[in-house]
Every structure is written in C-alpha cells, then in structure tokens.
C-alpha cells in the first residue's frame, strides 16, 4: 500500500524514478510495478470486469512507462496520478471496444459503492479509507454517476440513457460529484 506522503518526498521519489527509467534502470521499473501494480490492475479489473483485460491493461501501462518515461511529467502530478489516469483511459478504451461488439450489460445496482468484489483485496490505507468515506458522503444521485462513468467506463451520454435523465443533468451531476469529493478530500488533507 502506498502511504500518502507529504508532497515533498513523493515528488522527489517520482523524479528519481523517472530519471532511473530514462537511464534504462530495469530495477526502477520493478520497484514501480511493486508500488503501483495493485492500483493499476485493480482499477482496470473494476472497469473492465475482466481479469484478462485487466492483465493486458496493466502490461500496456507499465511497458508504456518503460518505453516513454519522459512522457510522465512530475510537474503536472504524481506518478500515482499518472498511472491511474492511464490505466483508466486504457480500461475505458477496452470497455468501448467491447461494447461495439456486444450490448453493454444492463445497469444493476451493485452491492455497496466502491467495494471491490474480488478476493484479494489490498489492505486499505488512509487514502482509500478517505476516498471511501467521501464516496459514502455523496448524495445517491451523485455517487451513482461516478459509479457509472468512472468505475464502469460509460460516457455521460450513456449515463444519461441508463438513468433516464437528460445529458446536461448527467454532465452537471458528474461535475458536482467530482467537486464535492475534491473538497471533502482536501479537508481531510488527502488531495494529491
């Protein structure tokens, strides 16, 4: 589990890892994998709901970082953020490719929001607990749009159709949900 460092040391660590990757240090990639594979794999698994696809996404994300370490810019955000963003992008791409081939599964109310359904759950740190609290504190309609858009990879148009609400409403709920969450987490000192 990754501790939520104060920004200073995390930035220094990310910069050092990036420089080692650029220098061709394979150990650096192994270290990054060990730090962040649960983040990348877990997110991809949740979004795709497919273990094989999650493995493919994980491989693409880490191999991509190894091939182009300089595309990660520590000035714009942490390595953690960069990897999570890329993993999400790739997982969403997979979901959209799949949905071209078959109909998306109907929306089912899932048991408790944000709970991973797989066995090997990583021991939760302060950050995960804070995010979980933040999600629970959201009003139902806001939590619902994050579930569909972020954790299921639907576009806001698909979210609107799924919930039977106007597109503009879907978009503004996503916006309110993200803003609420950001301010809650910031209050807890958990923004990155």
């Amino acid at each position, binding site marked *: 589990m990754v501790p939520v460092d104060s920004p200073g040391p995390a930035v220094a660590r990310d910069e050092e890892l990036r420089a080692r990757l*650029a220098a*061709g*240090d*394979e150990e650096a*990639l*192994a270290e990054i994998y060990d730090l962040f*594979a*649960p983040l990348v*794999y*877990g*997110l991809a698994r949740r979004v795709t709901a497919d273990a094989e696809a999650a*493995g*493919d996404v*994980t*491989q*693409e*994300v*880490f*191999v991509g970082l*190894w091939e182009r*370490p*300089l*595309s990660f810019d520590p000035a714009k*955000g942490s390595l*953690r*953020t960069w990897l*999570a*963003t890329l*993993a*999400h*992008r*790739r997982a*969403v*791409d997979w979901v959209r*490719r799949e949905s071209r081939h078959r109909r998306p599964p109907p929306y089912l109310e899932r048991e408790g929001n944000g709970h*991973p359904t797989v066995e*090997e*759950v990583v021991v*939760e*740190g302060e*950050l*995960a607990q804070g*995010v*979980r609290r933040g*999600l629970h504190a959201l009003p139902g309609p806001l939590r619902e749009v994050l579930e569909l*858009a*972020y*954790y299921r990879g*639907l*576009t806001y*148009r698909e979210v609107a159709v799924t919930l039977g609400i106007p597109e503009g409403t*879907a*978009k503004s709920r*996503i*916006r309110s949900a993200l803003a609420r*969450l*950001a301010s809650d*987490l910031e209050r807890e000192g958990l*923004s*990155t």
Partner: protein
Amino acid sequence: MSEEGHPDVDRALAAWALHACPPDEAARIDEHLASCPGCAAEADRMRRTAALLAAVTETAPPPSLRAGVLSAARRRRRPGVAMGLSPGLADAYARQVARMDDLLASLTTDDWRAPVAKYDSVRQLVDHLNRNDAAFAGDLGLVARAHDPGPRGVWHAQAEAVLRGVSADTTLLERPAALAVPGPRVVRAPARTGLVQRTFETWTHADDIRAAVGRPAEPPPGEHLRLIVEMAVPMLPQALRDTGRARPGRTARLRLTGPGEGEWLVPMAPGPAGAGPGAERPDVTVTADAEEFCRLVANRRRPETFAHVTEGDAALAADLLHAAATLGCD
C-alpha cells in the same frame, strides 16, 4: 477563469477528466486545453481528483503478471540503454549536419543553381532550411553569427549554435520551440521533438540535393530513423483529423521493418494526450520499410504508390498513409 471564459469546455471538464466524453467532444476539449493554460490547470486538478477514485479499487494482480510485464518491457526497450537525454539526440543532429556540410562543400557553382525538390535552386533550398533552423534556435535563444556570409556559412553557423547550446544545457530540450509545419501556423513542441525534426529535415534536404546533382541517396542509420518515426507517430492522430480522415475508436498497427524497425499502435483520431488506446486487436496492420516510411512522412513518396502490406481494413491503411504524407515540413 475557465468558468466565465470557456463555459462549454468548463461544463464538460469533469466528464472529460473521467474519460466520460464521447471521442469527438474529448478531442475538442483536448484541443482547447492545449491553448488555454487556465482550463488546462483546472483539468489537471480534476484529473488528480479523478485518479483518487482508483484508491478504493486496489487489488493484488495475479503473481504471474509481474514476470510477464517485466519481460514484455525488456522486449520493447533494452535495459541499460539511456534514452531521451541529449547525447543520442544531439549526436544524431550533429551527424546529419556534418554530412550536409560535406555535401555543400563539394558542390560546384552550377550545382548551387540546380533546381531541387520544390525550390528553384539548391541555394534557395538551403536558405529555406536555414530559416526553419533559425526559428527553432530563436525560441531557445541560440542565435548564430556567421563569419562566412554565403548560404553554406550562414546555415552551418546556425546549426553549430544549436548543437553547442543543447550540448551545454540539456534542460533546453524540455523548452518549447518552433516546429516547422506547412502554412502560416506556428506550432511549438518540446525542443527534443524539434531537434529530431531538424535532424529529419537536414537529412531529407541533403538527399534532395544529392538527387538534384545526380548522387546516390545516403540513408541515416537505424537509430536516427527510429527517432524520426517516434516523432511522427504521435502526430498522426491530429494529421488524420486535419486531413478529414479521423476515424474515432479505430486503431492501426504500424509495423516497420529494416533499420529503425519497430511496432507502433496509432489511434485513428486525436484523443487525450499521452493515452492512446492500447488496442490488442487493431483494425488494420500496415507493414512497410522504416526508411521508406520516413520518406513518405517527408512527402518524398506518394501515399498512392507507397510500397506496403495491409492486413485488415484497407481504407484505414490508405487514411493512415495519406495523413503520414502531410507531416513533412515543406
């Protein structure tokens, strides 16, 4: 700020940060963010918040995945080889500059007057190359003073100033500098990309001159070709859009052979920066020679007659090749 200035983009920014915009809308937002620092900063903040949502899905991957990922990484890039920092890049440019200088030194007065490529004379072509070099160097503050006022002296002094500058201060390569693009537009990219383009243009024009004066072409080594391909490939999605050939959601695999060989996945439409789809099943695979592909990118080959092999959607392959041929700098 974004709220008042760009309400359309601002309203969609949260959905964009969750990758929840349809491709055409995401592309419009990406384009806006590239030119609007206010919205871009807001977008980065939202991205960071969105990424926090991944904290509650952490799951240990199957233990076998680790070895698979590390060995795939090793196959795609050899460990122990440094990259991205200036020596390799500056060296590639230095070598093309030296070859061009030798070539120019050997030209006769008649050769200088020979019509070449799209220019009335070799002299005009060298002036054109120098103008593009100077725009790039100017953005990095690397101004040259030529001792020899002839076209070769002026061009060479400028190229030398660039080489000295980037060798002395590698951080220059992270600064934005002019890219040579067709038409009156000004496009800036990290100087690292610009220096690859200077290398590419210097080689292309040297071969133009060789062809004009009846000498054989001198292809660059494989490492230089690879730098050029790595510069061109990320520009393809935008070029597809600019030529009206964008195909959102589709992906092509570009498989280049010979010196500079490698494989690249190309999203057939612009998407969020740095995150093309990792398609395991691309819609088409285009196989071609790496050196020839670089000549296509330089618009020295016609896409219609370009030698390649297509597996999959032939129309996508044609779109890709046509877009590639528009990336040339003259």
